[in-house]
């Protein structure tokens, strides 16, 4: 007995679903169209907080996004970094890059190179910004780092002793920092537990979209000051800072893929109810 269309649809091979998604992803790159992007309250708060940083602030940017997560976080990572370096130029703020993951050495280095701020490209490296590299040991390492930076990282990522970098003069522990940012794809737990709660340091998170709902209680309770989420957050920050980048290029693909997945779910439900009405389930 031949199967009904609904039964066939319910047992559809995954490869056709993948094909639909492929088309949804590729469509915006072949047929150029842009959709309006409203700036959300979360992104606006994030931008406003950074924009209103006082002069001479010392900002630490924890780089805890993996190579895998970089495909989603590239937009927000670069937009945030550009904004921080603008603060460095305009308000004399000091910027320190560091992280807890193994990727947190090479990834910021590649990004600095992309922005022309690698020590090989920019002779002023070390005067107002530094890339310290990797804090080994996870939570325990972070706890130690907060008490004494040089005890854990005596040198920067390129091996220069921190004492020889003008930017690190007077910066010895977490209490010397005015703001902590973290770009993350694995959770904000360590920074919250080891930095925010013990030392009350203001904290901005640049999170992967998946983590945003889970972080909202932290935002609401004040443990987190502001949050930027996913590709959309990156695209919004690019628009706010007027530095259009990969976020705004990729955001249309977000729309088409979301619509494709919604369409698939609608078809799945129609199939389910049609089969139920026919007594097949």
């Amino acid at each position, binding site marked *: 007995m031949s199967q009904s269309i609904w039964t066939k649809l319910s047992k559809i091979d995954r490869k056709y679903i993948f094909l639909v998604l492929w088309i949804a992803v590729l469509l915006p790159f072949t047929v150029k169209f842009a959709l309006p992007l409203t700036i959300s309250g979360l992104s606006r708060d994030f931008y406003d907080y950074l924009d209103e940083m006082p002069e001479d602030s010392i900002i630490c940017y924890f780089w805890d996004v*993996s190579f*895998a997560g970089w495909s989603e976080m590239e937009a927000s990572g670069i937009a945030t970094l550009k904004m921080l370096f603008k603060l460095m130029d305009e308000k004399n703020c000091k910027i320190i890059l560091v992280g807890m993951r193994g990727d947190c050495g090479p990834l910021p280095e590649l990004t600095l190179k992309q922005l022309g701020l690698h020590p090989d490209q920019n002779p002023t490296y070390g005067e107002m910004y530094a890339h310290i590299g990797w804090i080994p040991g996870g939570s325990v390492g972070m706890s130690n780092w907060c008490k004494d930076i040089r005890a854990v990282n005596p040198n920067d990522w390129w091996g220069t002793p921190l004492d020889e970098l003008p930017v690190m003069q007077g910066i010895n522990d977490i209490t010397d920092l005015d703001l902590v940012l973290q770009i993350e*794809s694995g*959770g904000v737990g360590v920074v919250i537990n080891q930095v925010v709660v013990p030392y009350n340091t203001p904290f901005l998170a640049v999170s*992967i979209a*998946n983590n945003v709902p*889970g972080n909202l209680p932290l935002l609401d309770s004040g443990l987190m000051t502001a949050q930027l989420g996913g590709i959309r957050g990156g695209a919004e920050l690019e628009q706010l800072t007027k530095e259009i980048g990969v976020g705004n290029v990729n955001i249309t693909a977000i729309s088409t893929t979301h619509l494709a997945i919604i369409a698939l779910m609608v078809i799945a439900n129609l199939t389910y109810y049609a089969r139920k009405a026919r007594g097949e389930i």
Partner: protein
Amino acid sequence: MSILVSGRIFSGFFLLISAIIILGMIELAKKGDLKLHLRRIPALDAIDEAVARATETGKPVLQHGGSAPSAADTIANYSIMNYIARSCARRGTPYVVAARSIQGMPVIREIVSGAYETEGKLEDYDEDRVIRFGSPEQFAFASFFMDTIRSEKPAFTFMAGGLSGEALTLCETAVLEGSIMISGATGQLAVLFASSDYFLIAEELFAAGAYLSGDPRQMASLAGEDYLKMILLALIALGTIFRTFGSQWLLNVVKM
């Protein structure tokens, strides 16, 4: 200078209260003065059925080894690993652990070989077949785990501990291969809940060790947890009332 660090006094006090309650409950359980009734946790009850199904079909049981052993959810996973390993050893069901963490490898080795030894089946334990090390790197391990699922075709897959972005791909692969999927996590709740047959949400994962052991003294700690929850709920209710009437008093106490 005060003895206690300012801003941490309340948390220290809460820690002390929690210690008194937990230890008190354990003592009561030791004396047999505690009548405990735990609600059923379907995901944990399903473990026995899943292992039984694996035994009947002759297919293996596959378990995710968790991430670094310093993470609480990985430690909870180890308790479940002990239980599942013993269950498999007892029934002669093939058992495979896919280890992700380098630091966790020796721990997993000890747990699993100890489980086989406890059941008197140490001769059935072949380390190379039972414990497979993938990679500490997230997606390299995901590829490895997916490949292990496709080659071993487990009847039952258990995942907990350090699951993040790759969790959904692992779940989907297991389910599409026809495996019963039980997972547990404190994050990535939505994707795992949607794609697993059974799911342990946060505290259920941490309660697993006590629940599965059936030891009254371990279960007493869960009763203690309930009392702590009541204290927290009372604080939340009081805090809401205080803040509604514009008082910062309770907030200042908690921030002490």
